């Protein structure tokens, strides 16, 4: 278990590589990829300057989906922010719920009961699996695989979403966790259904890998493309699978051991090259580790309430103070920073969105590659624009 | 000298004229393919299938594309009206005329010479692909080999030029 040393001086990689001068009198072509481009995952624009098909310059332009998330949060009660966190990264609403609940629990000095802690781990890991599977599916979609891997990922995701629906009432906008526990309890039928789904997951990952991992075209497209050096990754505060694919051992589940992650055995897969293939493989391996965590967690879910009986839902006014809590969301470090002034709504509410911060190195990864690679590199970052633009 | 010949000849000449007279370079390049096509059809009307199809394959499939690529890679396709290059008759039109006349005269001379040399047959000799093949590896094997060598050298040269550029990057 090593903690990342953050260097204070700027590493070499941070300085943008000098723009190679256009050769001869070759004309540069400027293309706006987006906001309505088939593979920008929503409304996102990349202003790309091309020499032939080689990228000379890339400017990511985002904010098309800006919804004033943080400012909005400051105008409403602590409880009312919770459903909005669902809409940050709408693929992983339960992770977002957990991050925010953790921040407010820290602020108010509360603790979720044992059973709720187990539930949170189970839900977060299920979320991670479905997110990684679909993100690989989207990556392959951008590689032109006619949606087959995506459909397989969605087939599996559907089972997980069914579990979410039967527990939380909604498939994607779960709004399930509360400060001091979880909103509704869970019965054995649900746990058994979850066990069944989890038992089927290794087979799915095997099939997925049979379809993709050894594929020569996938290797040729992804190996050595979009390399992110570990120094640059650390300095640009990249987190999540992207950072681990660059070979930096940093997983907040291991670093902070928030929740009850210290009770479970799991490993953190690391890549050595930092290219798209490593990001893909790290996600696949993380899915396997998540399955492992789920198997352990589902073995001994304790009984008891899922909500701290002292917790207040309505008229919740934490003491003045501030708290920052972070979790290992599927996309990286998801942090919530809340300042309370004793009133029913936070004085300051801030989200550290992994998607957006991981996107900041897009140009560094893309320079010198093809347009086709830009799309892939962008896909391998795994973003959700709801979280980028907030 | 059937009507079909006149039709095809008209197409070919029209294509050639359009190539010279059109303003937009890409249009010129496309017009020249019409001339090529007319020529190929002329070959076919003479029952020379091999020559006709090779004309299409090589000239329309490769040469025209090469021309178009060259235009796109080097300059703007449209020449502005005001610039001297935009006018069909530039200052050096006299030189061009002289060169064109000389080339035409030489070709005409060659054709007339060969027409005299050939026996005056009305029926075309049926030339099959097999005959062409046999001639290429029989009577004309030496020119064929020389051409092959030349092309190989050109290919290697092209590869070296391309590789050099890649190293410079």
């Amino acid at each position, binding site marked *: *278990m090593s903690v990342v040393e953050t260097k204070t001086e700027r590493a070499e990689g941070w300085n943008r590589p000098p723009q190679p001068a256009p050769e001869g009198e070759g004309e540069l*072509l400027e*293309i706006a990829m987006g906001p309505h481009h*088939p*593979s920008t995952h929503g409304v996102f624009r990349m202003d790309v300057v091309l020499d032939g*098909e080689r990228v000379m310059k890339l400017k990511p332009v985002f904010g098309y989906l800006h919804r004033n998330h943080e400012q909005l949060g400051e105008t409403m009660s602590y409880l009312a922010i919770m459903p909005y966190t669902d809409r940050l990264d709408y693929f992983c609403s339960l992770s977002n719920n957990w991050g925010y609940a953790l921040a407010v629990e820290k602020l108010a000095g509360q603790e979720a009961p044992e059973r709720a802690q187990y539930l949170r781990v189970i839900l977060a890991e299920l979320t991670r699996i479905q997110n990684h599977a679909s993100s690989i599916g989207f990556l*392959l*979609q*951008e*590689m*032109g*695989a*006619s*949606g*087959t891997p995506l*459909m397989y990922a969605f*087939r599996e995701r559907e089972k997980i979403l069914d579990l979410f629906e039967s527990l939380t009432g909604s498939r994607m906008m779960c709004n399930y966790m509360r400060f001091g526990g979880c909103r509704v309890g869970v019965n054995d039928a649900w746990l058994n259904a979850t066990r069944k789904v989890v038992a089927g997951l290794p087979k799915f990952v095997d099939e997925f890998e049979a*379809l993709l991992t*050894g*594929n020569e*075209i*996938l*290797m*040729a*497209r992804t*190996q*050595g493309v979009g390399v992110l050096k570990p120094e640059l990754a650390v300095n640009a505060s990249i987190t999540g699978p992207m950072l681990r694919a660059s070979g930096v*051992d940093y997983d907040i589940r*291991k670093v902070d051991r928030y929740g009850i992650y210290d009770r479970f055995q799991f*490993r*953190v*897969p*690391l*890549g*050595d090259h930092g290219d798209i293939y*490593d990001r893909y*493989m*790290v996600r696949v391996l993380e899915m396997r580790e998540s399955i492992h965590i789920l198997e352990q967690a589902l073995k001994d879910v304790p009984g008891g309430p899922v909500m701290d009986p002292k917790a207040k839902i309505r008229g919740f006014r934490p003491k003045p103070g501030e708290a920052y809590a972070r979790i290992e969301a599927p996309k990286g470090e998801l942090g919530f920073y809340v300042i309370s002034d004793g009133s029913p709504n936070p004085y300051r509410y801030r989200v550290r969105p992994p998607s957006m911060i991981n996107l900041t190195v897009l140009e560094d990864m893309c320079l010198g590659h*093809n*347009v*086709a*690679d830009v*799309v892939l590199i962008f896909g391998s970052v795994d973003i959700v624009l709801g979280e980028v633009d907030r | 000298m059937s009507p079909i010949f006149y039709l095809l000849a008209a197409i070919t000449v029209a294509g050639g004229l359009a190539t010279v007279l059109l303003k937009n370079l890409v*249009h010129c390049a*496309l017009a020249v393919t019409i001339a090529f096509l007319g020529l*190929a059809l002329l070959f076919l009307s003479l029952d020379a*299938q*091999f020559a006709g*199809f090779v004309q*299409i*394959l090589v000239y*329309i*499939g*490769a040469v*025209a*594309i090469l021309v*178009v690529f060259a235009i796109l890679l080097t300059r703007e396709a449209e020449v502005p009206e005001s610039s001297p290059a935009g006018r069909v008759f530039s200052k050096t039109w006299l030189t061009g005329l002289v060169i064109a006349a000389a080339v035409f005269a030489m070709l005409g001379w060659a054709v007339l010479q060969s027409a005299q040399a050939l026996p005056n047959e009305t029926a075309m000799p049926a030339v*099959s*692909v*097999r005959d062409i093949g046999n001639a290429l590896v029989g009577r004309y094997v030496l020119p064929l080999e020389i051409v092959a060598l030349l092309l190989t050298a050109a290919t290697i040269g092209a590869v070296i030029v391309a590789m050099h550029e890649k190293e410079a990057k």
Partner: protein
Amino acid sequence: MSGMNVPATIDQIFILFTDWVAHFFPAAIRPIVGVVLGVIGIISVFPGLFALTTVFERKGLGRMQNRYGPNRVGPFGFFQPVADGIKALTKEDVVPFRADGVLHFLAPVVLLAAVFMGFAILPVGRNMVLVDMDAGLLFFFAMGASTELSVFMAGWSSRNKYSLLGAMRAVAQMISYEIPLLLSSVVVIMVAGTLSLPKIVEAQAGYTGIWPHWYVFTPWGLAAFLMFGIAATSETNRSPFDLPEGESELVAGYFTEYSGFKFAIFFIAEYLAMFSMSGIATTLFLGGWSAPLSFLNVLPSWFWFFSKVMCFIFIFIWVRGTLPRLRQDQLMNFAWKFVLPFTLLDLFVTALWRFMGEGWARWIVCSAILIAAYVAMGRVGMFRKNFAHRRYRYAE
């Protein structure tokens, strides 16, 4: 007619029908009537097949992706192409303001015409070929080459950067893969000794026991067939070589700015090119209209031709459902550094086969050369690019 047995009658039913129709006309224009009927046959059968194929493709892809595919319009969704056709016809035809109107209009027309011409020399059954020319194969490739120009016209005239990039990609790709396509068919020409497609089919028509003498069942034939397949996939812009229209990168490539029926024409032309390529591959390597086993000859020859073509189409769909697409430079590298050298080697191997005479020795020698070359080239290619399976380390 009474002298023929029933299978032979069914086999020749279209020829007999043509003759029957032609006999109503004066003798002088009978050949022309025959040709016109043939043309009508081609332009009705292949677009019909196209309509069917779009449904099959979408259903097949759907099944590969655990879903149904179109099943709402008509029984089992088979009227979907009708609905699509009506939609394409009634849609507004948008021409960009700055586009070159004439070329923008001409491009799909030229493309469709060139693609249709390719069918003229396809022997779709015994005696069923529209024009039996001496240089039939050459004609086919000449027509294939002229589609490139219309692709360029489409891309250039749209005045759209995506279209232009798509067109450049398409043309570069088509030129690169035309060479292996030609060379791998030269292999067959070397052995058959003719450029005429019906004669090539006849050269493969014999049987040893019940097994056919198709060229694909020889080492050089299999190699040439695979290379031809790769090149044909690329020529028809199908996945995994569908870069010119790679929708995740270039929106729709050279036909980004096309809408309505012009778009549909591009679509039709793409599928028709697929059919003609499959037809040529069938003719060159799979014995054209001859039956796969000698006793299956009771079924009509055209049935076998179209079954083989549909098998190809299925493989096209299957590949599309499985593989991601390559990148432009990889595509070019693949063409020039793998497919082309391999077809050249195959030319040599074929010559060797021809001159080694009958016997087992030539089977062993030819297969050994080809397999060794394949393995060596594959390994070297992957090794030079450092493509490899990787092992991952874990932190506890």
